[in-house]
């Protein structure tokens, strides 16, 4: 789950990281009032959960409250990469002398949090990684001992910070590490961390991505979820305990297991079709879950055929067969379907489908071929 810039920066501030003065506005008039209160030039920043806001025209500098109102009016309601802007952050404009990148992620290979820093801040770290990989410092931290002062001090000198900024840098990095660990983040990032003309370090932009699996111990953070982060069908799938990703094709897929679901999509493509979705019903799904999954697939008007691929282990084929038929009673449809059920209780499953004249296939490749033909014929 991603947090907005303004949410991330509030969490940073609560952990001792300096941020610019600023407030969130949902109307142009509000933006003007905030600008008046702050005094001096301000930055109007769209709050949407995608990168590249600046390039899309979603971040603008305003020299006075009147201009702040005019620009906020332009930005509010704007669409950026499919998301509508309904909030802007109005921040004091900073006097930037230098920009630094500072982030924390999990290094999968080392199985540790790793601090990533670069003296080339202000641009995406992926871009720096491509163009100047040597500019990126990486510092793995042992989670049982945590971040020590000397780690932060060494990094400050590596980045070439002036000696009188090192103390501020240690406070900021320790604050960021605390945010990362205490909120179960998978990413905590300040970009840029600026050095101002009067030699202060300030976190001008920031981002936090939270580990969905850990939200149970952070009910306060879970409430910050932006409904725009997921589509309506993805939201319904999440609430039903299904793992679903909408894709652009025409063949709906329902599979048990993530790896098998991906392999099923690959085979559909191999036979010349395009999958309409990734959908894993998980292990041990009962018929109500299958029905929920089918309704989500059918809500996509682009779907021209549906492929069921179930390898029963914990999941029982007869439960799945019953779920398919139950869902079809509730949601009648003309979309043709084919099912391939093997494993636990496959004979009962086949019998249930055969009695309902539901087409089935013996192997995955046969089922995929059939689904592609059905989609083309439709």
């Amino acid at each position, binding site marked *: 789950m991603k947090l907005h810039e303004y949410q991330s920066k509030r969490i940073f501030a609560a952990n001792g990281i300096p941020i610019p003065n600023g407030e969130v506005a949902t109307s142009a008039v509000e933006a003007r009032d905030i600008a008046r209160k702050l005094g001096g030039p301000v930055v109007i920043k769209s709050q949407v959960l995608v990168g590249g806001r600046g390039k899309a025209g979603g971040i603008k500098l305003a020299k006075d409250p009147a201009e702040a109102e005019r620009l906020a009016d332009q930005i509010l309601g704007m669409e950026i990469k499919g998301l509508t802007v309904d909030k802007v952050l109005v921040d004091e404009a900073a006097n930037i002398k230098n920009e630094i990148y500072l982030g924390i992620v*999990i290094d*999968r*290979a080392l*199985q*540790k*949090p790793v601090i990533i820093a670069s003296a080339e801040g202000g641009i995406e770290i*992926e871009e720096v*990684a491509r163009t100047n990989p040597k500019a990126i410092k990486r510092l793995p931290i*042992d*989670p*049982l001992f945590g971040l020590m002062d000397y780690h932060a001090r060494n990094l400050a000198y590596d980045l070439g910070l002036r000696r009188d900024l090192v103390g501020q840098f240690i406070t900021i990095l320790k604050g960021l590490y605390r945010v990362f*660990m205490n909120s*179960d983040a*998978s990413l905590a990032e300040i970009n840029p961390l600026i050095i101002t003309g009067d030699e202060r370090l300030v976190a001008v932009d920031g981002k936090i991505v939270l*580990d969905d*699996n*850990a939200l*149970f*111990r952070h009910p306060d953070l879970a409430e910050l979820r932006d409904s725009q982060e997921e589509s309506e069908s993805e939201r319904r799938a999440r609430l039903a305990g299904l*793992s679903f*990703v909408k*894709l652009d094709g025409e063949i709906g897929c329902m*599979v*048990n*297991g*993530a*790896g*098998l*679901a*991906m*392999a099923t*999509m*690959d*085979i*559909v*493509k*191999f036979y010349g079709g395009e*999958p309409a979705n*990734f959908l*894993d019903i998980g*292990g*041990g799904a009962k018929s109500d879950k299958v029905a929920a999954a089918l309704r989500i697939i059918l809500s996509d008007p682009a779907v021209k055929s549906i492929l069921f691929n179930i*390898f*029963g*282990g*914990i999941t029982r084929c007869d439960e799945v067969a019953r779920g398919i038929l139950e869902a079809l009673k509730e949601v009648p449809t003309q979309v043709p379907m084919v099912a391939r059920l*093997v*494993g*636990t209780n496959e004979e009962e499953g086949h019998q249930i489908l055969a009695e309902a004249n539901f087409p089935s296939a013996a*192997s*995955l*490749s046969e089922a995929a071929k059939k689904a592609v033909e059905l989609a083309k014929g439709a």
Partner: protein
Amino acid sequence: MSILVGKDTRLLIQGITGREGAFHTQQMIEYGTNIVGGVTPGKGGEWVHGVPVFDTVKEAVEVTEANTTIIYVPARFAADAIMEAADSGIKLIVCISEGLPVLDMIRVQSFLARTDTRLIGPNCPGLITPGEAKVGIMPGHIHKPGNVGLVSRSGTLTYEVVQALTDKGIGQSTAVGIGGDPIIGSTFIDILQLFEGDPLTDQVVLIGEIGGTDEQRAAQFIAEKMSKPVTVFIAGRTAPPGKRMGHAGAIIEGGEGTAEEKTKAFEAVGVKVARQPAEVADLVAKLM
């Protein structure tokens, strides 16, 4: 016994009184696995399918001399269960639980690095040495004893490949599901190393998927350290970048971890990569 589990396995079930735990206890007993005890705090003294239940792993190990444990507890308690087992002297821990917080696993791995306990999983189907012991949730009947080792990040996709092998009359030495999470106890390399040293394994099948760089490192390991042939399948060729495909590990991050990159890494060191799960069996048959 081939690798990790077999006739010598003395298995403990953590979370034995839960719905999943109790169901799979019965399934594993039917397969012939030697289950010596179960643990559920607060339920010590009860019996589940003829298996005695203890309050703590420590007590269960003292009484039953268990050497392996399988964990079915809810994700939020799983890190605690893993560390409790390691602290009680268990040498092999299999964690089925799905949805562990990443930072919990980071702490678990730091803890286990200071012990000689091996962890398989979490978020995995477990492992099976056909005809000897099933320590997991896979359908036992699709397996057949033989000399092909399997290691996989996925559950049902592994069943698909096992079925294809068995249909061709090709048996398996041990099939290990290492799990689909970004942080796991045993990696491809750990298991490949065991298969390389196992006299009952002649060749290995590796089933990977998009996300991370574990497969690329496995390719390097195969090139440098393995004499036995390996056949590979990678799921997720058609997955779009930036989207999490069910498994927390299955997300392509910034050009790192596509199926194409992984396929190339294997092909560059002479390892054959099947285009479909069923094709794995054809490639394996040619190597026999």
